[in-house]
């Protein structure tokens, strides 16, 4: 069995195919482009879509940052970084500002993104209408005809039942006044960061074989109603480590009696705030 693999694992033909799909996705913001997703040596659900996107766009000069749940050091982020270190030998960074490509699962960094940076999202379920209509053959038509009434009805039903919209993460957005898109399971706290962002945002769903994108400076609006506007999560306290009151906070249980403290989910941002920049 051959033991050598191409730069960044995928063969060049597959990379070209993925890059063509990315270009199409950028040309039609928020539209899910079907692509010939390849099988990767990491399991589906572990970020195979994101890994394929990164593999297709990465070059030897890139600096890659990988986060999971906002952290550079969770097991899955470590594993994906190890994969690209091994197959592409590229530089890894934890500095959001330094990175040219940031692959992420479930978060967008707190540090504002810049022009020229590419965010790569790992997407489990690319179809925002999936839980309203599980059949792809139907949802394709709904997107085609911009038939989004059922999504608004679902949000309305939330308000009728709970007094507010009950989606806390993977909160649907409308991109460039046209397609309704899943922002991937980021907390809705991160949704506004997509709106007119100077960075390129690429979304890859490996198992479902879909790629979609938000080009730079594109309108990304979280769905809501005039009288029930989109609202963000709020915390009463601040980060127990850096004291930040403007970042997404994770809850840490510190003892058996259930004492809770809150700390930043974005570990790099937190370290920076404490005057202790990431290595």
């Amino acid at each position, binding site marked *: 069995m051959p033991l050598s693999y191409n730069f960044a694992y995928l063969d060049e033909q597959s990379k070209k195919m993925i890059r063509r799909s990315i270009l199409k996705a950028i040309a039609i913001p928020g539209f899910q482009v079907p692509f010939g997703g390849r*099988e990767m040596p990491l399991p589906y659900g572990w970020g195979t879509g994101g890994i394929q996107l990164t593999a297709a766009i990465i070059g030897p000069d890139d600096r890659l940052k990988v986060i999971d*749940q906002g952290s550079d050091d969770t097991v899955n982020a470590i594993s994906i970084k190890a994969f690209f270190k091994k197959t592409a030998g590229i530089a890894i960074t934890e500095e959001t500002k330094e990175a040219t490509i940031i692959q992420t699962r479930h978060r967008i960094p707190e540090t504002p993104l810049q022009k020229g940076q590419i965010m790569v999202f790992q997407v489990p379920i690319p179809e925002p209408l999936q839980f309203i209509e599980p*059949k792809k053959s139907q949802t394709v038509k709904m997107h085609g005809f911009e038939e989004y009434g059922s999504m608004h009805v679902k949000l309305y039903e939330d308000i009728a039942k709970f007094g507010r919209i009950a989606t806390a993460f993977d909160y649907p957005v409308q991109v460039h006044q046209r397609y309704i898109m899943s922002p991937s399971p980021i907390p809705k706290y991160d949704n506004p960061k997509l709106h007119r962002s100077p960075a390129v945002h690429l979304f890859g769903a490996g198992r479902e*074989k879909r790629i979609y994108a938000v080009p730079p400076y594109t309108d990304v609006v979280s769905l809501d109603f005039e009288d029930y506007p989109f609202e963000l999560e709020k915390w009463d306290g601040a980060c127990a480590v850096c004291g930040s009151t403007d970042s997404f906070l994770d809850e840490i249980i510190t003892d058996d009696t259930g004492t809770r403290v809150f700390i930043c989910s974005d570990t790099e941002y937190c370290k920076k705030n404490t005057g202790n920049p990431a290595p």
Partner: protein
Amino acid sequence: MYVAVKGGEKAVKNSQRLVAKKRRGDISVQKISMDQIANQLGLGVDRVMAEGSLYDVTAAAMAIQQAQGDMTEAVFLVRAFRTTLKRFGNSIPVQTTKMTAIRRVSGIFKDIPGGQILGPTYDYTHRLIEPDPDHAPDPPCDRHTDTAPPDKTAACDDISPLPEELPRVIDILQAQGLLQQDETTPPGDAAEDLTRQPLAFPVSRNLRLQALARGDEGFVLGTAYSLQRGFGLDRHPFLGELKVGYVAVRYTPPELGFDIHIGRIKLTECVMVNRQDDAVRKAAGFETGYGLVFGQNERKAMSMSLLDRSLAARKNTGKTDYPAQDPEFILSHCDSVESSGFVQHLKLPHYVDFQSELVFIRNRRKDHTPDKGNP
């Protein structure tokens, strides 16, 4: 305080060390060789090749060992290896009528041209666990010792003199005009490739068959079984023909311009026959379902042909009352690498999403408005 989120790298390394240790087990016990797996766990190797979509006995045997016998994990390893291989062309479609059969049975005719061949099967054994199932002296065929490449297992199949060509049993029905014509599948270069393009619905028959052929055996079996229990079939299906054997693979390299023999592969082929009497649309007759799987795997090939028929039925009747009639339900969920990955990804951290849920629940509890309808 960062204990909860730090230390990922070290933990992963330790875990990989532990799994290597677990895999080796007690070092006083001899290590299993690839040859032993390829020869003595041959049906397992066949399954991994089929679901891995790669006819490579060595790769499958290595994967089974590396996965500690976890078949789904072994399939995954083979798939991840396969995906890196270059697709250099399409073979000429294999001729299963020219198969060197080691087994061939039909449930619809007692005597068929070419004869019924029971061959190696567990069908008529008594399933009693025996201290040493091979207590009898080794069968005469033990030519392949540890020096022989593992795919020489073929040498062990007792091939009795069989006709060069076995006519297909359903050709008998075909000749009498009792069969509905199947959708024709484009041969050769025109064939689509599920591993190079995403599944889209409505799905063509050749992609449907590809998806089923590499689908998880358990899923394909279970959903085919549901048909038999009335969740999609209203009468008993029949086994037209089930055949296991070796076929030659021929390929035309573009630089040569003529076809050459590049190897032999073991296949299981199945044709199921169902009565069809939708009198409104067409004359009464029979319709068939087709199954073709790498290696010897009759359970899988039979289930596949039942599903092939029921999934085609949607087009004919427009009805999908049951899951096993719905191409999107079956084909989107039959892949073990996809389903195993997505179910098990729940082991990954979901702190952020769960935090969002916690914030939502807490805020909701703070709301003073009493819930309508809820006490």
